[in-house]
């Protein structure tokens, strides 16, 4: 068994409504986890941004301890004028298309804490021996466009978000 992991997405007011085991992770102009991105695309010619997206890694199963959690993305610059930004958050804000103010999403690893058995929102601790279910702090990301973007409408190539951790 060891630990098992799943990704939960958070939507709605204060990004507090969870959808568990949500692997669909497209950035789009609507704050939900069900609408296809093609139905609510980002219009780059208007310098639009996606809705901020809140996701958290959730642990279940068995372990002795969990520690050293990080989030990263394989590439944060899909094209000139396009940027994927992100940060680890300890509280939720209602998703918005306003620029989040986050820096370019880390490609090497943003440290996150382990919070508790019910929510990713809270200060948490960098390691934990608590058992049962464990929510890591949430990751907030956003796809942003600027006036320097010269491409037309269309998909960016697939990106991979990775969470890493150590367990005993």
């Amino acid at each position, binding site marked *: *068994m060891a630990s098992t992991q799943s990704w939960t997405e958070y939507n709605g007011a204060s990004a507090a409504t969870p959808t568990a085991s949500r692997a669909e992770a497209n950035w789009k102009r609507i704050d939900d986890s069900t609408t296809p991105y093609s139905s609510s695309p980002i219009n780059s010619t208007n310098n639009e941004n996606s809705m901020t997206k809140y996701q958290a890694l959730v642990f279940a199963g068995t372990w002795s301890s969990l520690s050293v959690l990080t989030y990263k993305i394989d590439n944060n610059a899909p094209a000139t004028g396009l940027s994927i930004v992100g940060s680890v958050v300890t509280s939720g804000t209602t998703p918005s298309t306003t620029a989040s103010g986050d820096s370019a999403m880390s490609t090497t690893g943003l440290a996150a804490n382990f919070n508790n058995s019910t929510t990713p929102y809270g200060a948490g601790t960098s390691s934990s021996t608590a058992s049962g279910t464990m929510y890591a702090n949430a990751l907030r990301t956003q796809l942003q466009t600027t006036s320097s973007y010269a491409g037309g409408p269309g998909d960016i190539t697939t990106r991979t978000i990775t969470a890493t951790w150590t367990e*005993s």
Partner: protein
Amino acid sequence: MTLIPQDTSVQAEYADGYIHDETTLNDVSPYVEFKNIFDDILHKRPEAEHGPMVRFTAFYKNAKYDIDWTTLPDNARPIRFRDGASYLSGGEEWSEWTGMRFGYQFNDETGKNIQEVQEL
């Protein structure tokens, strides 16, 4: 039936020959809810029934690594850390182990920390 040890798994053998094995027990402690087999070994839970640990073993990438626990002082503690990664990409999520460290730690008679850990 003999199960192939799962990657990054551990097992411990005790004085009466009992083997507390992560793969066989599906990494679920029979002693404490939601804890794993390594936690049992670390906290010596099987020793009340089976005597002192005599061997600590790890399995990784088709190799077996043994520590003869009878050569270590009573205050020795087993070490097993495994590094995990969970991926979210293209509408799919999956996880894997990416590394492992294995060894022991104890304080000698002067209080000095002695630690032997191998990156497997």
